[in-house]
């Protein structure tokens, strides 16, 4: 049992370097926002960010000047509007161009699957006839070696230098449990050279071992474990706190104005030393508005062999 716990500052310093390819996953649920903020605080540059749904945290990292290239399948502020910085970068190269490599969701999923499984490609049934094929040379065709000789598009593997995901809980060695929407996090971790897991809480080994089927990411795939409660805000952690929909709705106006966006970053990212300060700055009353009541699962029986047996 290796203790891999560390602080967010140390994890980002150790595992995210200028020029790295960094995957941040979490599909609406469990978005690793606090990790993105720490990357901004530490002033990383020239990152290639891989993220299926490039949303607020990506817009913030773009505004923080951290990102040279984006690999994504959806670039929008959820259903709440636009990402101002992202659109300025893409539509007007303002303040600088953004390299953009675009896939569909399943294309991204396939890339993670291929990366996790050390496959040279992953076949998908979509893409036929899409103009994406003409702007993304990574999309290629393979012919089936079976009788029908059918063709199918394939996507190339992605192997990020580091994948960062957020989860409800882990033990000190990185056995990580997730419930609610589980997205693509496990495959994104397995596809990466290094993996950082950020959690709402680090729990006793026994809590994990009482329910091994909830462990989606085993410790052998994890390099660092960071406790960072409320680290997904404005995203949510099922059973811990709700999504801050008002923040999402407000973001479109903030990010539409470069001045406001930079002021926001100054106040909330550069103006806080770490995520606990960000949490405290929002205030307990604010968090009370995102609190959820209990809806507990029923226990299942894993069973224990009797001593009498055999």
């Amino acid at each position, binding site marked *: 049992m290796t203790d891999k716990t560390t602080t967010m500052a140390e994890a980002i310093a150790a595992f995210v370097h200028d020029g790295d390819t960094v995957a941040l996953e979490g599909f609406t649920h469990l978005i690793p926002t606090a990790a993105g903020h720490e990357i901004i605080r530490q002033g990383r540059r020239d990152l290639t960010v891989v993220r299926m749904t490039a949303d607020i945290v990506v817009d913030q990292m773009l505004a923080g000047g951290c990102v040279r290239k984006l690999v994504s399948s959806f670039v929008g502020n959820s259903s709440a509007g636009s990402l101002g910085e992202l659109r300025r970068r893409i539509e007007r190269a303002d303040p600088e161009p953004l390299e953009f490599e675009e896939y569909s969701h399943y294309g991204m999923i396939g890339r993670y699957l291929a990366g996790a499984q050390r496959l040279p490609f992953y076949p998908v049934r979509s893409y036929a006839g899409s103009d994406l094929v003409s702007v993304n040379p990574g999309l290629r065709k393979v012919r089936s070696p079976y009788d029908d000789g059918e063709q199918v598009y394939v996507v190339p593997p992605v192997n990020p230098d580091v994948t960062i995901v957020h989860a409800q809980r882990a033990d000190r060695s990185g056995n990580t449990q997730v419930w*609610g929407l589980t997205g693509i996090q496990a495959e994104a971790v397995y596809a990466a050279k290094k993996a950082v897991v950020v959690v709402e809480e680090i729990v006793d080994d026994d809590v994990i071992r009482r329910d091994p089927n909830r462990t989606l990411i085993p410790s052998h795939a994890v390099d660092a474990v960071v406790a960072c409660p409320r680290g997904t805000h404005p995203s949510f952690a099922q059973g811990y706190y709700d999504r801050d929909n008002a923040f999402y709705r407000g973001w479109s106006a903030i990010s539409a104005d470069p001045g406001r966006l930079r002021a926001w970053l100054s106040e909330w990212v550069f103006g806080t030393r770490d995520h606990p300060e960000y949490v405290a700055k929002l205030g307990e009353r604010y968090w009370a508005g995102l609190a959820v009541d209990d809806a507990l699962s029923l226990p299942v029986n894993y069973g224990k062999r009797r001593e009498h047996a055999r």
Partner: protein
Amino acid sequence: MTSTKDTTSSELLSVVASRELAGKRTVFAGIGLPTLAASLAHLTVAPDLEIVYESGVCGAHPSQLPETIADAVLITGAEAVLSMPALFGNVLQGGHIDVGFLGAAQIDRWGNLNSSVIGDWADPSVRLPGPGGAMEVMANSGEVFVVMRRHDPRSFVDKLDFCTSPGPDRALADGIRPLGAGVTRVITELGILARQGVGEALRLVAVHPGVTADQVRAATGWPLEVAEDLATIEPPAAAELRRLREEVDPGRVYLR
């Protein structure tokens, strides 16, 4: 008593779309009008309908109206929550979705959709959110319904600025056998355009009361064919509106 006079645009589109789901079993729906239509259909013409969400939720029983396809209220009390590889691979690509709902900035006569850019992809005047899972919904659903609030030549175009989600005709031209029929219904404030599948263009099959075929032609960016037996859409019935207003969206979150 439920008044059918003050029917809003959202109510009209939801009710009309719900009727098209008669007898369907599985629908892939985003938040907003598709969810309203599917939820209403569940209470009326499709009692066994299951809504599957892109986030991985199957058989949701939300305590409140969800605000996103990943809303926590969709997860608590759901029948199943799947990983993205399972949702996209087994459920969607595996062929378990009867009807997928999609939206788009532009649609052409073959039901191809653009949700990527206005202008050139490499130097767009407007960068839109992009494909998300729309390409997979198009490629893998039995058929696709599109609900478009705006019916005008900027959205119903002769030529897409960019084809994000291709219908089966484009897939075939690319040498790949499509798995679904593509867009079969486009429901707008003016009427319903329809097509059956490969080789067929969308044509006007029904109009709302008071709307003429010429009006729809004028609002469409390609020379729109009109069905010989052009139907008039039955206005929302009082019972439909009552269920929509009182059971589906009592808080009028989406029934703006």
